[in-house]
């Protein structure tokens, strides 16, 4: 499997998780989730609405930069993606920086809308390609947005699962722990155990992430490629073989 194939497999895996949504929003600079949302819409007409922030052609908001957040609070966004420099076993995420705030070192960009959207969007998919003890930690240095909240705190949404370059976890809200659903074909449970900084539930005979559906891959190549190129030109070049124009 080439790197491009691995990324395509991630796109197909994520697309499948969006099929039950009406409206998926994708933050800027999230090419794999963005491609997955566009693929799901092309494949199943569901999600019906895909909003890619920072895009002109694939962003239908007309109310200014605040509309995304209002829209989430209205319950009109079904799925969203968050990442983070650190993610811990309770699904807390850190987009602020390593070390003691405020003198973080390194400092990352900041919290963006995560401290809000994590509470309000039902299906928040954590996506972080790098799977290491540096990114998946026991306890984040700074909680940009908490994975869970106490009883009585208004919370309509939260973490659905975590997808990395090595595997796919679901988050168990009651147990407040991740559960390994499958290991990607190019990887192993042992490698995941070695490279994950937090404890999680798993079966010894954890399944392998199924290969992407060839029809879905075909659709990605044929129909979704052009749309992805409009939004993420550099990314599109890296995962699609450059062919002569026809």
């Amino acid at each position: 499997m080439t790197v491009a194939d691995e990324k395509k497999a991630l796109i197909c895996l994520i697309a499948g998780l969006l099929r039950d949504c009406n409206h998926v929003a994708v933050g800027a600079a999230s090419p794999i989730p963005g491609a997955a949302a566009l693929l799901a819409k092309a494949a199943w007409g569901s999600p019906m609405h895909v909003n890619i922030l920072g895009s002109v052609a694939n962003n239908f908001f007309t109310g200014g930069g605040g509309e995304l957040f209002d829209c989430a609070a209205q319950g009109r966004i079904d799925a969203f993606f968050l990442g983070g420099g650190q993610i811990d076993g309770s699904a807390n995420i850190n987009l602020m920086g390593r070390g003691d705030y405020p003198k973080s070192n390194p400092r990352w960009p900041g919290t963006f809308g995560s401290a809000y959207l994590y509470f309000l969007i039902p299906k928040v998919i954590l996506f972080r390609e790098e799977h290491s003890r540096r990114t998946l930690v026991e306890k984040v240095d700074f909680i940009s947005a908490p994975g869970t909240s106490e009883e009585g705190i208004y919370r309509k949404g939260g973490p659905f699962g975590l997808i990395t370059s090595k595997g796919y976890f679901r988050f168990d809200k009651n147990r407040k722990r991740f559960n390994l659903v499958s290991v990607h074909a190019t990887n192993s449970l042992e490698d995941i155990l070695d490279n994950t900084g937090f404890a999680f539930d798993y079966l010894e005979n954890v399944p392998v992430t199924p290969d992407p559906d060839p029809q879905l891959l075909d659709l990605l190549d044929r129909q979704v490629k052009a749309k992805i190129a409009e939004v993420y030109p550099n990314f599109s070049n890296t995962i699609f073989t450059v062919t002569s124009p026809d």
Partner: protein
Amino acid sequence: MSASFDIVSIDDLAKTIPDGAKIAIPADYAGVSMAATRALIRRRAQGLHIVGVPTSGLQAELLIGAGCVTTLESSALTLGEYGPAPRFTRAVREGTIRLVDATCPAIHAGLQASQKGTPFIPLRGILGSDVLKNHPDWKVIQNPFSDGDDPIVAIPAIRPDIALFHAPLADRDGNVWLGRKRELVNMAHASMTAFVTVDAISETSLFETEEKAAGVLPALYVGKVSLSPNGSWPLPFWNGAKGDDAHMRRYMEMAASDAGFNDYLERYVFSESAMA
């Protein structure tokens, strides 16, 4: 509304932004006035309180690097695919700027509170985050409409002195066209006044058609306009220019060191006045 609305040079615009001003600036995708940013550095502005609406990028990075900023209030500072912002990263590490780290909807809500002349707007979410723990202004209150325990975060009004941004067009009356970038309208309503650089001046009123009028910020909210074609350079502009990728890469290289950053300012900021 008066035909006598003054259109000023970029350096004159920057001169009327006082030291210590609280300035609201948009995110990199919404129309950043890099021309005004360079003019502020040229006039060696001091003590600025920058409010990134809801985030900032190269604009805050340059102002911080040039020593113009005391406080950065924002939900993020990002240069996107170019990687960590070198001057910002350094300033944070060394503690040379005061950080008021927020989350995007709270920046919008704080501006909306100012826009409505109300002391605060309550907002869901945020509870349990370290952003709340470290924010100097937010308070947790009880929702007065709930019978049970229902804590909610109260976001106080953010009232900038000046909203500063780049837009496609202004007319001779001081009306500004900004299409569907309504966060700029909110910024301007929330601020004492708005200073705007534009790509072009329209000789006819922007209220002439309903289509155009739908995207207008009325002159009532506009303090200064400066004609600065391509004023968002090297950032992209939603209504035209692509980003200058080569220049951004050059910036990242030069800004990696203090000396390199000073060379950058010398070359691209201080010597620009010759062109103005």
